[in-house]
């Protein structure tokens, strides 16, 4: 029995079946169909989920944070008069990140740019007294705001009542750090009140070390009108004479 003429003598011969190498065992047709269906559902669900996420993000932009909501509810209740909401905006890190990215192409004052870069979340609510409603009891509103904020772990650092203007600034009782600053403020002027809350981080890249919180009378026309109070990092508290 000799070896075939075309095979080298003494060499190992590996015989591979051509059918097993080229055509792996294929799954049954039912499994293939369910996998395809899963892919189809996935493809359909992804844009829907993205749409839902975007919708939730946009909705949250008009939904105040829990502290601001609690303050608003208590103030409205204690004032005993009707208020009309003018603005309620809540910028989270995503929205502010988009704003920061957009503003990076705009020529801005370095101070303003530093402030925008420092802020990680911000909420603002503006309310106006309904026409014909009497002026609310400011002292009572002040006391109510204090108790609402204290119950939520905030403490008032500044409270100013001067004529028709009222300003109160709160910081958290605990966990205050130069790297994570959390400030809440509400101002009441003649027939309007506004609440602000922001979280900021210290911006190391900027030369400016200040973060100013400014409240203005709505009738002053511009932000640089007559700020009764400013708060900054290097100069935490400042009361300017307005009269």
């Amino acid at each position, binding site marked *: 029995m000799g070896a075939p003429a075309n095979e080298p003598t003494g060499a190992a011969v590996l015989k591979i079946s051509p059918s097993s190498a080229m055509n792996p065992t294929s799954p049954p047709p039912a499994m293939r169909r369910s996998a395809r269906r899963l892919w189809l559902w996935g493809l359909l669900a992804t844009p829907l989920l993205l749409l839902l996420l975007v919708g939730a993000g946009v909705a949250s932009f008009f939904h105040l944070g829990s502290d601001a909501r609690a303050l608003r509810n208590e103030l409205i209740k204690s004032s005993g008069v009707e208020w009309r909401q003018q603005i309620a905006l809540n910028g989270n890190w995503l929205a502010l990140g988009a704003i920061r990215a957009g503003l990076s192409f705009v020529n801005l004052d370095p101070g303003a740019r530093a402030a925008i870069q420092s802020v990680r979340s911000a909420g603002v609510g503006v309310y106006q007294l309904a026409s014909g409603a009497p002026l609310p009891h*400011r002292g*009572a509103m002040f006391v109510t705001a204090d108790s609402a904020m204290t119950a939520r772990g905030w403490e008032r650092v500044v409270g100013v009542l001067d004529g028709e203007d*009222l300003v109160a600034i709160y910081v958290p009782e605990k966990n*205050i750090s130069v790297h994570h600053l959390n400030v809440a403020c509400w101002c009441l002027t003649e027939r309007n009140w506004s609440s602000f809350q922001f979280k900021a981080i210290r911006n190391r890249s900027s030369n400016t070390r200040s973060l100013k919180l400014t409240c203005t009378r709505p009738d002053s026309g511009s932000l640089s009108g007559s700020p009764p109070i400013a708060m900054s990092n290097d100069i935490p508290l400042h009361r300017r004479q307005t009269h």
Partner: protein
Amino acid sequence: MKTIIRYPLAIAVLAAGVGFNVLAGPPPSEVDFGKFTPPDDGGQFVEIQINSNLLSLAAQVVEKQQPDAARLLRSVQLVHVNVVGLTDENRAEMTKRVQRIRHDLDAQGWDHNVAVQDKDGQDVGVYTKTRGGEALAGLAVTVIDPKGQVVLINIVGDIRPEQVAVLGEKLNIELLKDVGAALKEAASKDTTSSEATPQK
């Protein structure tokens, strides 16, 4: 056996320490001015309360550029300022209240450093509390301006009256700057008059 005794003993000492700390309450140089209710008739009302958390935050921020200011901010544990505008309704009550605060400060062993009463009726009192003879533990300032307002200031920490203006500048509290400048002026007048007075 020793371990069995040592651990409960350590826990008891720790618990006692925590207990005493809780019982210790506010520092002795913290003055309780009482609660002021903001007036509703447009009268002035200012309340500023900066505790050690915020002061240390401010110190951290200025540390590199202004180490002296940071040291000053760290030496203070509390800055409390109250300004209440005087009206016909609250004048008598507020004046009585400030007199009571001054009486309490005297009774609690505070040193009455400055007492000024000018012909316009403005009445200023500056009190300090020392700790261990040398260092200051606190400062209290009471001002009654019958035409305008009552001002109450309490600073807890090792701060001299001459440093109040610097603290006011660093915290940017106009009122502290003004009071500090007045205190500095009073101190310099005091020094000049004592230098001018011949030694007997």
